[in-house]
């Protein structure tokens, strides 16, 4: 089972630093580990998986948390 890391991205969005925060955080974990990003910006549902795929990573899940936020789970693949 791959180790799971967390990124609480708060209300960051596409224009307010979410791509940078995600990119920096996933580069900080070992290849094969998983990053679970929690974010309130609804645009991230489409955006963060697209960014992760372009970076060569594997999107494992996009889920709605009970509090209305999104949970996007990505495995660092390279």
């Amino acid at each position, binding site marked *: 089972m791959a180790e799971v890391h967390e990124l609480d991205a708060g209300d960051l969005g*596409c224009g307010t630093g979410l*791509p940078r925060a995600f990119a920096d955080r996933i580069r900080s974990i070992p290849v094969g580990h998983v990053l679970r990003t929690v974010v309130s910006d*609804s*645009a991230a549902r*489409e955006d963060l998986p697209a*960014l992760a795929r372009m970076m060569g990573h594997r999107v494992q899940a996009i889920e709605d948390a009970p509090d209305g936020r999104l949970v996007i789970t990505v495995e660092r693949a390279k």
Partner: protein
Amino acid sequence: MSDKILFICTHGRDDAERATLPFVAANVAATAGQEAVVVCTIEGVWVGTEGGTSGIEAPGLPPLASLYDEFVGNGGTVWLCGACTKPRGITDEALAKGATIVGAAKVVEEIVNGAKSVSFA
């Protein structure tokens, strides 16, 4: 590989002609069976909200409201720039049929995968 054609729309009520023209072109693409997306940014994001097209009509062009409905009915989709909806207070609850809020990475990924884009300056 993406077969999408992205039509960029940067205007709404502030410029009826510039708001409408991308939908005219996108609707032609959708009618022809192409995978057409109107990407709305800046003031254009209002177009993808409930009631956001009402009253927008440029001389010589169809009312944007009917054009929008026809486009979506033809299978077209509308993407709203998330960095533009956020400062305008536009949330998922306010969206019109066929509209989705997306971020830049979504658009970039489509282009990287081969999508074509058309813009009307």
